[in-house]
């Protein structure tokens, strides 16, 4: 069993006991524990079930590479799935639960899958669930989705806050082990600004566990001194609990600081996303130990040798009473020696190598009385939910059992892989290190920055320097080199010297034993999390998946949170062996950020709820809010959809607003409409290119409706243009189009017609604009001004500047409703005053403010198009019967050439018509108009679609606009409009102008 040792645990504060719950069970640990170490101290080795076969799984590692021990953490608004117990700091009151099992962790029905393992090989789902086709959507997919996925998504809103933090430094050092500390020190001593980040709460990495001495001092003492030295340097910033998540173009990097994961509810953000721009990035990210591939290597109790050592030294936890060590290198002997020194039993070290003589570590182990069997291996591990023993065989053979040894833990080591993730994120190349059987950074091919120079420098174990002495020299040099590249060249102290034992070379072991047959390979796990075994990778190769990227996707090797941490090299080696090619030729899969998962909330940062995006308010916003406005978001604006009186429904309010406007007087806040001032001697020429119709011929004092297309010919915006004077035009755009059309104008002026003398300014927010609409509009206007606003003085499509209630106002006599209508613009600061004035003056006529829906209905009754309803980016003006607004005289305008392309002139393009339902009902928005027969996919053929549809209070029936095949030639024809669910409404094709066809109401 695993238990807490009487002594040891350099991270622990044994005076501070903490209580926590696992699957409802009350357990205790100490301050300084990780959740994993605390679980082990309580003999909770079984922590989860595997993804596919639901096999019992225990803790394998002690850090970020842990594949199995993922739990659901917290409750309610702080629940989070898939939290790694090995990187979760224990705190008092922690609550967590294991995942992927039913009904319980100890008894899981899904474990039947492991009995079916033979029938669930790589690619099983692809092969099995293809036929019959319709079954995929309704039977297979729902079933697979139910059984897939580890954790459950949270159901409640996250109660914590998150933030972004920006940092600009000369040198970013990722990793706070001895390599990172030393690199930061030499960079800092050189005079560079340095940010040093470390994912765990402690500095020093694993060197203090592995032992040795630096400059005559024990490693942990040295770490303490360097940390204090860095802390005192003003140009060095240190952040623990901060992971280097990703490296991106031009020295951009993301750091993920877990500010309050270990003290939930504390003031401040839970996570902080560091957005770092660094001149040079040093990756001192260390190395990860590889598992060995032997049968039963996933049984709880089989653990990485380094993890067994970490739990003993850092947390005072023994993983088992009797631990068999199995290895292909010297490093694992350190685990055996430490266990033995703690008084635990190590029955045997199985070393797959055959060496001519003992190394220092081997001699030390033997001197402690540990039995060492060279050239031997594990044939298979015995046990179910816990290791009970191992069967020993020769590494060279097929696994004939020579001896069985009882034990309750296995410490395995297949050698070390440098953590090259961050080096590779932005394109750093790798090279195969034959001696250490690992990929390490190819320092001649680094990711390059804006200046073409490499900006990532690997240091220490991450650079393949796996021995302490090499680590120190490499890291010291890396720090100085990074600083030098940034122009910081002050003298540094000398690189420290290490005293460490010599080690014998490791020997690559990819399969244990070497000649393992299918039965063993099918129980030898490569990727614990995704349940990928040696046999699966071999099968993928056999079925033709030769590219490592394809094999990865076929087998799911190294996917999800693993990202190649534990499984990568072993998988590549098996694939290479199956393909009969050297490992470097197989290559690696792509390493993608983040290094370990980061919270989505940290990416969102503060951009949520009200701060998600800015809210734009018109000067009359408060009045709207106080008078029952039902808001509609329009871009970043909020406009009243309608104003609800107490007890009134939205529908009733809209109908009331339309009626009041048509019968007497309505008031519309039109301030959000875009207002672009276009000015200069070439302004007319410029607008002739932008609009489909002629604008240069417009007289000052007059207005003209115009259409704007892009170079592809499609309609992008419309609005009324007013000519202010010879050189000046005011172009109204749609609300949503103000910024984009401004950009569109700037683009053409700056990049195509830069020699034209034209300037554009966006005046949208400078003016408040109010639509005074209805038969009584002129009466009210005249009452407020001394100027002549008669039909003769201010005819339709004219504008004038007048004084209105003491305010300078510009009156445009234009109409989007078909009514007598004035749009009145004043300075934004006077908008509310004008609004109040018009309300007061219009009171006698029952003035009724109306919202966007009433506006839509009134324009539809008049057959006026709306950008975004009748257009969708594929519609040209000709489709909408707007040929009258397209100049035939102009040689050129944006879109003209495109509108001559064959598809654009096709007579079969759907064209705009009106639709009137035969039963007076309202058609569903976006509905299709069906045609005879079916298409190749068995779907009903269509001959048009509804673009706008409303109940018209004016006409008392449903009206709609639609694009219909040959529509204008089919007036009076009745077509069928199917609803979702199968109901069909019949509608008659009519003229799109439903109301006041001759314009008598607006031309008074």
């Amino acid at each position, binding site marked *: 069993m695993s238990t807490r040792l009487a002594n040891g645990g350099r991270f622990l504060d044994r005076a501070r006991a903490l209580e926590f719950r696992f699957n409802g069970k009350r357990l205790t640990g100490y301050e300084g524990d990780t959740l994993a170490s605390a679980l082990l101290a309580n003999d909770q080795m079984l922590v989860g079930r595997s993804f596919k076969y639901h096999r019992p799984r225990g803790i394998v590692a002690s850090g970020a590479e842990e594949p199995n021990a993922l739990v659901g953490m917290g409750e309610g608004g702080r629940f989070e799935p898939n939290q790694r117990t090995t990187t979760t700091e224990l705190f008092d009151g922690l609550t967590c639960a294991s995942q992927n099992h039913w009904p319980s962790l100890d008894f899981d029905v899904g474990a039947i899958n492991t009995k079916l393992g033979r029938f669930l090989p790589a690619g099983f789902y692809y092969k099995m669930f293809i036929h019959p086709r319709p079954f995929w959507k309704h039977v297979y997919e729902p079933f697979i989705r139910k059984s897939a996925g580890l954790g459950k998504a949270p159901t409640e809103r996250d109660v914590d806050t998150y933030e972004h933090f920006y940092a600009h430094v000369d040198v970013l050092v990722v990793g706070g082990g001895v390599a990172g500390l030393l690199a930061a020190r030499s960079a800092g001593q050189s005079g560079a600004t340095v940010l040093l980040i470390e994912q765990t709460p402690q500095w020093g990495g694993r060197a203090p566990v592995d032992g040795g001495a630096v400059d005559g001092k024990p490693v942990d003492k040295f770490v303490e001194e360097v940390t204090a030295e860095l802390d005192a340097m003003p140009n060095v910033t240190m952040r623990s609990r901060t992971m280097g998540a990703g490296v*991106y*173009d031009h020295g951009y990097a993301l750091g993920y600081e877990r500010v309050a994961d270990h003290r939930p509810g504390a003031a401040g953000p839970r996570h902080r996303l560091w957005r770092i721009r660094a001149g040079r990035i040093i990756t001192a990210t260390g190395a990860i130990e590889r598992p060995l591939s032997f049968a039963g290597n996933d049984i709880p109790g089989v653990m990485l040798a380094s993890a067994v050592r970490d739990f003993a030294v850092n947390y005072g936890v023994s993983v088992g009473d009797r631990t068999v060590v199995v290895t292909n290198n010297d490093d694992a002997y350190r685990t055996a020696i430490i266990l033995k020194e703690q008084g635990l039993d190590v029955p045997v070290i199985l070393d797959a190598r055959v060496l001519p003589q003992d190394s220092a570590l081997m001699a030390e182990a033997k001197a402690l009385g540990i039995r060492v069997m060279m050239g031997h291996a594990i044939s298979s591990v015995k046990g179910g939910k816990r290791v009970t023993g191992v069967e020993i065989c020769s590494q060279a053979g097929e696994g004939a059992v020579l001896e069985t040894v009882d034990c309750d833990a296995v410490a395995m080591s297949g050698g070390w892989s440098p953590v090259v993730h961050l080096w590779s994120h932005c394109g750093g190349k790798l090279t195969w290190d034959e001696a250490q059987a690992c990929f390490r950074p190819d320092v001649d091919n680094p990711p390059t*920055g804006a200046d073409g120079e490499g900006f990532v420098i690997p240091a220490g174990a991450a650079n393949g320097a796996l021995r302490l002495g090499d680590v120190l020299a490499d890291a010291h040099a890396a720090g100085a080199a990074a600083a030098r590249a940034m122009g910081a060249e002050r003298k540094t102290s000398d690189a420290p010297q290490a005293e460490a034992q010599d080690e014998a070379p490791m020997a690559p072991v990819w399969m244990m034993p070497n000649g393992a047959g299918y039965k063993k390979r099918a129980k030898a796990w490569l990727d614990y999390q995704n349940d990928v075994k040696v046999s699966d990778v071999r099968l993928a190769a056999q079925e033709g998946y030769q590219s490592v990227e394809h094999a990865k996707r076929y087998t799911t090797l190294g996917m999800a949170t693993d990202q190649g941490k534990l499984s990568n090299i072993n998988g590549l080696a098996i694939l290479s062996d199956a393909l009969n090619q050297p490992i470097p030729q197989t290559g690696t899969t792509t390493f993608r950020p983040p290094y370990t998962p980061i919270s989505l909330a940290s990416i969102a940062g503060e951009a949520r709820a009200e701060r998600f995006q800015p809210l734009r308010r018109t000067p009359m916003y408060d009045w709207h809010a106080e008078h029952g406005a039902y808001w509609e978001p329009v871009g970043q604006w909020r406009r009243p959809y309608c104003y609800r009186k107490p007890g009134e429904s939205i529908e009733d309010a809209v109908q009331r607003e339309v009626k009041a406007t048509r019968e007497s007087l309505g008031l519309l806040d039109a301030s959000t409409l875009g207002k672009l001032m276009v000015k200069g001697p070439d302004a007319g020429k410029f607008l002739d290119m932008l609009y489909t119709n002629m604008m240069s011929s417009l007289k000052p004092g007059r207005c003209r409706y115009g259409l704007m297309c892009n170079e*592809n010919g499609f309609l992008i915006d419309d609005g009324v243009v007013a000519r202010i004077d010879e050189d000046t035009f005011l172009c109204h755009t749609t609300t949503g189009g103000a910024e984009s059309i401004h*950009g569109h104008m700037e683009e053409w002026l*700056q990049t195509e017609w830069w020699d034209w003398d034209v300037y554009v300014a966006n005046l949208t927010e400078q003016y408040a604009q109010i639509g005074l609409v209805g038969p009584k509009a002129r009466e009210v206007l005249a009452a407020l001004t001394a100027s002549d606003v008669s039909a003769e003085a201010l005819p339709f499509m004219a504008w004038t500047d007048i004084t209105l209630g003491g305010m300078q106002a510009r009156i445009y006599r234009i109409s989007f409703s078909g009514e007598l209508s004035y749009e009145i613009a004043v300075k934004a600061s006077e908008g509310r005053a004008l609004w109040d004035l018009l309300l007061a003056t219009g009171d006698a006529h029952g003035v009724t403010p109306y919202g966007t829906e009433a506006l839509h209905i009134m324009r539809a009754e008049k057959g006026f198009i709306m950008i975004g309803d009748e257009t969708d980016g594929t519609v040209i003006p000709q489709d909408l019967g707007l040929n009258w607004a397209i100049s035939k005289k102009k040689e050129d305008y944006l879109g003209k*050439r495109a509108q001559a392309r064959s598809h654009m002139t096709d007579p079969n393009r759907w064209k705009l018509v009106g639709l009137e339902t035969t039963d007076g009902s309202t058609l569903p928005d976006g509905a299709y108009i069906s045609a005879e027969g079916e298409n190749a996919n068995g779907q009903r053929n269509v001959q048009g679609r509804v673009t706008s549809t409303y109940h018209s209070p004016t006409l008392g029936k449903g009206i709609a606009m639609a694009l219909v095949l040959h529509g204008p030639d089919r007036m009076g024809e009745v077509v069928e409009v199917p609803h979702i669910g199968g109901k069909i409404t019949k509608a008659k094709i009519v003229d799109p102008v439903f109301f006041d066809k001759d314009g008598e109401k607006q031309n008074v």
Partner: protein
Amino acid sequence: MLILTCPCCGVTAEETEFHGGGEAHLKRFGPGSSDEDFHDYLFSKVNPKGVHLERWRHNYGCGKWFHAARDTVTLEVYGTYPAQTTEPPQDIRDAITAKRPGWSWREFS
């Protein structure tokens, strides 16, 4: 995320402050042009591996369009220059040649 320097206002800023606008030095084809020329103008853009001349706009800065000479593989930026030109200026060409002798892009080299 790239870093670019706007040649108009001189600010060196993060990519999020800019907006990419595709291939630079497009020649516009309007009414009267052949179907093939117009099609190529609208749709046939180069996407080279290596030296590329691109349009960018300093959206959240001075608002000006400019051109960047950039390497799509190494991400090196050889230089940026104003958009009001029909061809890359000599100093930009020299800067590219210094790093990538023998380069060519469309009709330029």
